[in-house]
């Protein structure tokens, strides 16, 4: 095990730290050496397979679970998943005890094996999944667990195993058993139809939560549960709403005289901060969801919007044009001690505090280009991660390693060719990826780990 850790320490050392500039990234990019890992198809006996075939219409559940894990780990950019075709040992034997020489021969340093069996508890079908993580060079098992669940939960089992492997090998908490809420978009640019949609972090199990009858924007997860706050134009009254994604129950929380928008939860999930626009002036307010008391936090004739709490709840970062242009500010959560922190060239928007607390992600517009970047909470150490024609709305993965955002394309001379898609990028500036969605998509927000 120590060997893995060492390998990973090396990888992280090679990555540019916070103080490095964007320019250096291209030079070191090629130095990344992903860890070779083999994910054996999970062994599934014939009886189980026959049952699963009936229930889930899958020919080989064990293989499918291993593919979920493979897909998750591959997309981190930290692992090199070895082609299953080259595996020399059968899944059931490998799971009992791998022949380490065989796995070393195909240059694998880590091996994941598993087993799926069907079970009947109180006349209901369940599946029991066992997983083991093996160190090939050390020739021993280093981790593993087993769990029993309903068959339809099989993808989540794959995510939980991915989280365990990621945690064990990187020393950081995982982010695979999570969901992403976003705005699904359809139709021409001038008459976009927008719906709230939710999907697993890997793009599966998409569900639409609104019908598209009214414009909806900026959904955001409660960090402590499966509640969501968002902006809806229901009855042409743009207001902040609260939605329980389990029950589908909705309620207005920002019912002020005026437009409420840009909502976000406090870290304890008990408050929502948002903007209230009235008579040409937008201010930041906070509403306590338990007491229903609302309080105004900013008091300035400029636009104050896009507020986001620090993870300890003591500070708020927000966007204001009080200097003449959009810049990023921080203040105490009671609205005192307002301080500007962005001083680079260009204008800055959408500050979002990292779940680790040390960084603020933002959107920057400079010389006609949009950037997603991060800076320390005092405004120093600005690092731009990605540049494009249009992109904004960064949202952090729960472990603070990845930023998801959306990007829109430039239309052609006829005004055609518009699209909006979700993208993700590592905090290091590596590993930029399209996040596949069924429709066009924008305004992503990443949930916390789902728990049990």
């Amino acid at each position, binding site marked *: 095990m120590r060997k893995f850790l060492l390998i990973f320490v090396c990888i992280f050392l090679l990555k540019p730290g916070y103080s490095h500039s964007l320019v250096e990234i291209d030079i070191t990019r090629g130095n990344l050496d992903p860890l070779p890992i083999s994910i054996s198809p999970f062994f599934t006996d014939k009886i189980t397979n026959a049952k699963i075939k009936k229930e889930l219409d899958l020919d080989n559940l064990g293989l499918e679970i291993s593919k979920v894990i493979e897909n998750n780990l591959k997309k981190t950019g930290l692992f090199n998943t070895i082609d299953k075709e080259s595996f020399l040992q059968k899944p059931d034997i490998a799971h009992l005890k791998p022949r380490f020489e065989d796995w070393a021969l195909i240059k694998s340093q880590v091996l994941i094996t598993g087993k799926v069996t069907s079970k009947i508890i109180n006349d209901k079908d369940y599946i029991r999944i066992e997983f083991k993580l093996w160190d090939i060079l050390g020739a021993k098992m280093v981790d593993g667990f087993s769990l029993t669940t309903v068959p339809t939960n099989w993808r989540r089992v794959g995510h939980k195993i991915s989280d365990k492997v990621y945690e064990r090998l990187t020393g950081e908490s995982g982010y695979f058993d999570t969901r992403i809420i976003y705005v699904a978009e359809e139709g021409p640019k001038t008459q976009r139809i927008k719906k709230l949609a939710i999907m697993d972090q890997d793009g599966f199990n998409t569900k639409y939560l609104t019908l598209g009858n009214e414009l909806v924007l900026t959904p955001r997860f409660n960090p402590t549960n499966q509640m969501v706050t968002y902006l809806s134009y229901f009855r042409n009254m743009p207001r902040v709403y609260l939605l329980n994604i389990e029950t589908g129950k909705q309620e207005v929380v920002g019912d002020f005289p005026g437009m409420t*928008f840009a909502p976000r939860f406090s870290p304890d999930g008990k408050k929502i901060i948002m903007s209230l*626009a009235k008579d040409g002036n937008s201010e930041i307010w906070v509403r306590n969801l338990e007491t229903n008391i609302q309080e105004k936090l900013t008091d300035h004739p400029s636009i104050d919007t896009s507020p986001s709490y620090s993870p300890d709840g003591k500070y708020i970062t927000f966007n204001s044009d009080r200097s003449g242009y959009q810049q990023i500010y921080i203040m105490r959560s009671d609205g005192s001690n307002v301080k500007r922190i962005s001083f680079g060239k260009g204008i800055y*928007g959408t500050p979002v505090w990292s779940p680790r607390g040390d960084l603020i992600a933002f959107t920057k517009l400079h010389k006609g280009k949009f950037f997603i970047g991060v800076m320390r909470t005092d405004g120093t150490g600005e690092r731009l991660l990605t540049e494009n024609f249009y992109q904004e709305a960064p949202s952090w993965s729960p472990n603070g390693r990845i930023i998801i955002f959306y990007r829109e394309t430039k*239309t052609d001379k006829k005004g055609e060719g518009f699209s909006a898609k979700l993208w993700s990028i590592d905090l290091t500036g590596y590993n930029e990826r399209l996040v596949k969605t069924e429709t066009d998509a924008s305004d992503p927000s990443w949930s916390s780990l789902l728990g049990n």
Partner: protein
Amino acid sequence: MNLRKILNNVFLVVILGLIVTACATKKSVKTTTETSTTKAAETQKADPIEKLDALMQGDVYVGSDTVGELASGVPDRVFFATNETILTTASRETLRKQAAWLRQNSDVTVVIEGHADERGTREYNLALGERRANAAKDYLMTYGVSSDRIQVLSYGKERPVDSGSNPLSWSKNRRSVTIKAN
């Protein structure tokens, strides 16, 4: 190791330089012919460019495309400069016409929709649209239209009228539109 890296880089730069210069010399002959054709094209293009100038002052749209009517002879919308909420002379004239018509038709209530172009973050643009709509509302009020007849609704960048990704399209989208509500 550092030294080797530097040497490697120097080597790369030299090679790249050679390639680039090689390409440049090859192309120089071609470009002369290209420029002569583009010149011809430019003279043809000159018209639309002049038109563009006539359609925008600074970066405020002053054309009539997309402009509807609140009532006969009363334009329904005014346009703004990037990131601005200041009313231009032309905008004030439009709004005075709207105010005069609204004073004559005292039973009419209106919604003023404020819009922004796509070159800004969504949330800021919602605030900006609200500010623009209110700039128009305030002006109507100073010309005698009472505030309870005017509702304000910001769409930010959500409802562009022109789907283009160019300065002219953006100028048409930076607008506030007065719409009859009853």
